């Protein structure tokens, strides 16, 4: 048996950034179509079993029904029997189950937030993130067919981690306990509430901690992108303070939204080093673009960048290696 898992977030790509920016819209029928292409490609290369996260759109059941009706389904499809909460918890739980089942690769469709939820529970399973969200830095825009081929190639490989990169992650500690993680950025904002979750207004941002920096990035990880570059494979991160009177840079905060931001201070930080912040007022911590944690004045938050993120599939390297092993030869 060769298996992969598919987690398709039905809620990605519908948040408030469609109102306040020019963010992409990908509806669930299009996500369904992408999932079908992943399944078709993966089974063609030898994947026999595919596990799906249960979701409100019933993505797994629809794929199975549609492809079976078209007589195109070869693999066995299984929708995980776990309770559905229509929240991030479903992704965390499904990823945990898939790892326990020993799937060869998890394909996650969504945005940075979806990949973050998967990364909360997996340790060893390679992750192939496919972008269907907003302002994505972590997942790539990738054709589903290619994603399915790469997922199959990883699942069929004896040495899957050779073509994966163990990513960095930002760990957030409160009172010594690991409270949450982020894969790309943690933003401290003066917003008072979690509300519509997405964050886009640079005026309310006070601090940004990132695992990678590049001018070709978008969102808050792009803030320092005008000043330096930190690549995913480098054992470094960056901490940026924003306030008036600093260096002004133009930043692509969201799709079609270039804002001028004043950087007071930007510091490169090393892995496994604690950075502790005391909140001067009530505020919110946003993780990978979504407001998640409300913090009260006086609260302390410790942030640590580590190399304990997920094993992310390098699609090009994986398919190059698959070609060398003769995976595509009949």
């Amino acid at each position, binding site marked *: 048996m060769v298996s992969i898992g598919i987690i398709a977030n039905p809620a990605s790509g519908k*948040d408030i950034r469609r109102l306040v920016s020019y963010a992409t*819209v990908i509806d*669930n029928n299009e996500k369904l179509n992408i999932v079908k292409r992943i399944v078709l490609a993966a089974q063609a290369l030898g994947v026999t079993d595919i596990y799906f996260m249960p979701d409100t759109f*019933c993505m797994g059941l629809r794929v199975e029904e549609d492809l079976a009706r078209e007589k195109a389904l070869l693999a066995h499809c299984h929708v995980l029997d776990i*309770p559905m909460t229509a929240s991030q918890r479903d992704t965390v739980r499904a990823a945990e189950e898939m790892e326990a089942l020993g799937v060869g690769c998890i394909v996650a469709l969504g945005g940075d937030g979806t990949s973050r939820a998967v990364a909360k529970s997996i340790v060893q399973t390679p992750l192939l993130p496919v972008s269907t969200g907003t302002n994505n830095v972590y997942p790539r825009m990738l054709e589903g067919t290619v994603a399915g081929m790469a997922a199959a190639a990883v699942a069929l490989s004896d040495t899957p981690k050779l073509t994966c990169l163990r990513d960095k992650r930002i760990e957030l500690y409160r009172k010594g306990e690991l409270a949450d993680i982020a894969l790309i950025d943690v933003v401290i904002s003066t917003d008072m509430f979690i*509300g519509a979750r997405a964050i886009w207004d640079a005026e309310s941002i006070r601090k940004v901690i990132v695992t990678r920096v590049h001018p070709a990035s978008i969102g808050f990880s792009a803030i320092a992108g005008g000043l330096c570059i930190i690549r995913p494979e480098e054992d470094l991160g960056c901490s940026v303070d924003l306030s008036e009177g600093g260096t002004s840079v133009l930043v692509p905060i969201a799709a079609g939204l270039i804002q001028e931001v004043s950087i007071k201070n930007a510091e490169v930080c090393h892995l496994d080093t604690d950075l502790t912040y005391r909140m001067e007022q009530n505020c919110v911590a946003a993780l990978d673009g979504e407001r998640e944690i409300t913090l009260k004045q006086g609260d302390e938050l410790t942030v640590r960048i580590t190399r304990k993120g997920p094993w992310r599939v390098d699609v090009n390297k994986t398919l190059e290696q698959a070609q060398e092993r003769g995976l595509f030869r009949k």
Partner: protein
Amino acid sequence: MKVTNQQIQDMYTCMKKIRAFETKAMDVFAEGSIPGFVHLYIGEEAVAAGVCQHLNDNDYITSTHRGHGHIIAKGGDLKYMMAELFGKSDGYCKGKGGSMHIADASKGILGANGIVGAGHNIATGAGLSISYRKTDQVCVCFFGDASTNQGTFHESLNLASIWKLPIVFVCENNGYGISMSQKHHMAIKDVADRAVAYGIPGISVDGNDVLAVYEAAGEAIKRARSGLGPTLLECKTYRHRGHFEGDPGTYKPKEEQESWLEKDPLFRLAAYMTDTNIATRDEILKIDAAVDKEITKAVEFAMESPVPALEKVVEDIYSDIIEEVRVR
């Protein structure tokens, strides 16, 4: 988006008012004190409160058969509403309309509506009127998920989009059309997806989080007032009661009901207010007590109001204004 502590307290008061009004309506209906049907808004309060916080008396709303919450949030008078439910002559419709026809032109409330999907067209007409008069008003159209299967929804969004009308279409997706689960009446899960077909923004928010609704509605209303056209805002929520009072709601699985009760919008906001020191527990109890008093007064007012006289039954059928227009 900025929000003041006072605004948060106002939204709590509004939600509490709706909850208390509906709970009283549930009780008096069970006693047999009021005629007709009532469709209660319990569980969905955050939508009306979060949206209407951005509106003033000049703005319009259109409502549905489940309209009490919208009317209260837009400033409707509890006394006249309760009297209407009791079928009394001091009610909003002189006791002849009942729960599903309450309107108040002075507050921009263009009416609850017993016809599923009829509010879409009324809102589009109001939006066209605003656009024609070039004012900065907006119209908010409240409707349920199942009504978006009606032709009126598609006609209205199409026209509103073409003419860039200042309308915010607010879908209260409570997962059911009467007793039919959304999965059996619609091939999609997110009504917001339908916006793509009309070239307008469509977003989904947690309709049980009043601050999420407040933030999203604020941006959509700002967009409408600036002449950028309509938005489809889907608020995912849940009604705690049956479709109408008397419907036991046996089609709703127990686990589903329990999971939504945990997300009760009123309790969530109260917890947020105490956690963030916006209000103390005592201050919240004080708001609750004041609201309860207001509801008691509304019921007393309704009970003391006379039943409309028999000869009034054919009055108020046609408006004189229509006749004047015809003469011209």
